[in-house]
């Protein structure tokens, strides 16, 4: 039992709250009749699963703080299981934007769901060991097989898909707000995936708390990407200027 655990668990709950807020707003953003509805909803599901994962992770740390190791492990399993499934909705979101083919997007999403479920089966088969808790986190040791499955089955393919959105940033014909959305989403998703990976690979100590803070930053940027604060609108000049057509003769005003 360490005082740093409680602080870390607050950071995790913060990540969960931001993710849930973004998820709810993404799901309710568009009407069902809108062609982009499913894309928006799947992105919302991604953040919802991520939020669930971090909520349970925060709860697992908090329950470890109160020395209830049985429930701690249950929370940890729930946290890791939802983390393993989050790539499925994300793959639909990215593939649908890139290819526009629902069948391919659904197939990719199902592929990630199968990999996620396999990882969950492995998780429950091999289990998780509690090892050397430090000041900031009750450390969990994941089986190397699970780590490999996560890295090569989920992390690398997901990151490759995320990078598929990169050319949008340089597009000249895309509206400024679209570029802003994609750029911030890319940064947010990269932060989330990269620091989650570090956690799974087993970093501990203060670095783990800092990595959770970066994940919180990622979730905040994800929110700001689709629901920009006023300051971002002003700084990045996201509001398109509407010019009224001049109806006078060319010689007027000379």
């Amino acid at each position: 039992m360490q005082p740093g655990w409680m602080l870390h668990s607050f950071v995790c709950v913060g990540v969960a709250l931001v993710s849930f807020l973004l998820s709810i707003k993404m799901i309710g953003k568009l009407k069902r009749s809108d062609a982009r509805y499913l894309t928006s909803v799947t992105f919302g599901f991604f953040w919802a699963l991520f939020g669930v994962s971090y909520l349970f992770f925060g709860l697992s740390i908090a329950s470890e703080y109160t020395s209830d190791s049985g429930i701690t492990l249950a929370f940890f399993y729930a946290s890791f299981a939802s983390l393993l499934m989050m790539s499925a909705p994300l793959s639909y979101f990215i593939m649908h934007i890139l290819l526009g083919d629902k069948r391919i997007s659904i197939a990719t999403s199902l592929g990630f769901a199968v990999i996620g479920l396999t990882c969950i089966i492995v998780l429950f088969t091999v289990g998780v060991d509690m090892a050397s808790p430090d000041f900031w986190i009750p450390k969990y040791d994941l089986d190397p097989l699970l780590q490999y499955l996560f890295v090569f089955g989920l992390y690398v393919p997901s990151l490759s898909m995320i990078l598929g959105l990169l050319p949008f940033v340089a597009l000249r014909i895309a509206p400024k707000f679209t570029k802003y959305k994609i750029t911030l989403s890319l940064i947010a998703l990269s932060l989330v995936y990269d620091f989650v990976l570090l956690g799974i690979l087993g970093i501990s100590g203060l670095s783990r708390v800092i990595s959770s803070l970066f994940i919180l930053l990622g979730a905040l940027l994800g929110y700001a990407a689709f629901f920009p604060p006023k300051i971002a609108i002003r700084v990045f000049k996201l509001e398109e200027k509407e010019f009224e057509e001049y109806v006078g003769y060319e010689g007027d005003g000379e």
Partner: protein
Amino acid sequence: MTVDVKWEGEVAEFYRSFGMNQGLGDIQYRLILKVLSLNGVSKATNFSDIRKYTDEIADRGSIASKMKTVIQFEGLAKKIGRGEYVITEKGLLAADFIDKSSKHYKSVKKTLERVERIP
């Protein structure tokens, strides 16, 4: 290889919307050069081969006129016999430019569709 009249019409419409009524935005010009380029500089193309594609969008007279006033006049193709034409090197350059304009349209269309799919 064949020429897709519907696709060429779509591409021409795109460039016409930019005010390019001649050249890239002219479906007749596009189709004539595309058909002529299929045979290259060493093989003659019959006028009837061109009309196989252009009959859907224009009458015989307009195509004959376009051949004479634009394609032959600018040296993009030579008349080498009754109803027989062969594309020139310059004509091949123009045909190549038309192919590139199709690719450009395809890429712009794809990009705009992707942008529209972002929620």
